[in-house]
């Protein structure tokens, strides 16, 4: 995978298996990419935020980046706190 978002290693009595990973740009899910896996099987790529997406988010055509979700959660928490809740 070109510029992977991480590296995973499974070590068992059969040997060592290594593969690339990426983190979904929309939900933050970790996706393992097996060697020679077809691109359409590992998810998609959002042309709006230019980030790879997991299979679950690839079916959703909207672009809702993880960073925006985090900011919304933090803003909601700050608002509730300001209301004394």
């Amino acid at each position, binding site marked *: 995978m070109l510029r992977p978002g991480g590296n995973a*290693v499974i070590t068992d009595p059969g040997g060592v298996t290594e593969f690339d990973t990426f983190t979904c740009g929309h939900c933050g899910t970790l996706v393992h990419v097996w060697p020679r896996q077809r691109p359409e099987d590992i998810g998609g790529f959002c042309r709006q935020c230019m980030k790879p997406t997991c299979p679950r988010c690839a079916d959703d055509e909207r672009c809702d980046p993880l960073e925006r979700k985090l900011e919304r959660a933090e803003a909601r928490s700050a608002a509730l706190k300001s209301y004394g809740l």
Partner: protein
Amino acid sequence: MANYALTNGSGTQQPTAAAYTGALLGVTAGTPGGRRIKVYDVLIGTNGLPADNFVEWSIDRVTTGSSATVVVPNPLDTADAPAVAVCTANSSTGGTVVATGQVFYVGVNQRASYRWVAAPGSELVSPAVAASGFQLRIRSGGYLGTATGTLLFQEQ
């Protein structure tokens, strides 16, 4: 932007069950001044009698962490301040898991150990909202022994 190590090496490790029951490890934003938690390294394995069983590991987003057992994560740089995050290990009961919040899932043989390291910018991130964070959980239909886990995370 300090880095911390959280392990379940201390305390009483809980047996694995066929369903997700407790949480091997948990890390949630603390209060006041909660910070974002970025998990960038995960190491998992089992320490029971070796056998061939399928073991499933999961990291899920939580909105409330476990209540016990609270542990103090070690800063990787001893000059760093203690973590603001609330960490738990070997919890027999899980927190409040977000229904669609599974961000990590891997199934491996019980004999296998697994490690994932994130490239900078590809960490598992949770918002700076009190009690929000992650839990590492395990389940297995065949393996009923104990398991080991380590999370390295960053507070921002």
